[in-house]
């Protein structure tokens, strides 16, 4: 791929963010547990 987008089969880039309750959520915490559906939003405002 030359457009630099992520393609199936690649490792998902890991990240850690605080959720709306202030708990840290790390993508790799789900490894070995269950699949994750990621939705990137447009924004509410």
């Amino acid at each position, binding site marked *: 791929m030359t457009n*630099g*987008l*992520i*393609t*199936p*089969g*690649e*490792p*998902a*880039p*890991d*990240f850690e*963010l*605080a*959720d*709306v309750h202030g708990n840290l*959520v790390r*993508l*790799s915490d*789900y*490894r*070995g*547990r*269950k*699949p*994750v*559906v*990621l*939705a*990137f*939003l*447009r*924004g*509410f*405002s």
Partner: protein
Amino acid sequence: MRGAEIVAVGPDNAPNFTRYWEREGLPFIGLPDPAHTVARRYKQEVNLFKLGRMPLNSVVDIEGRIRYIHYGSSMADIPSNETFFNVIEELNGASR
């Protein structure tokens, strides 16, 4: 959702994101990403002619690999729920 965690990442700051999340009573994980760190890492497109961020949806398997990814080309270009169900059922079937 059946056998998967749903995680939504959005550009709003934490107070605005949280207010929206609580008002709508959304039952999945909501992650404010006001610095756009994660959105950039996943190459979410920002198209000023289309008035902002384009939808981006992905399914990550239990080994941490991208199994499905869709970069929306317009605001309405979001895969159907059925698309996600099918990917997840395939993943969960394969891991049993």
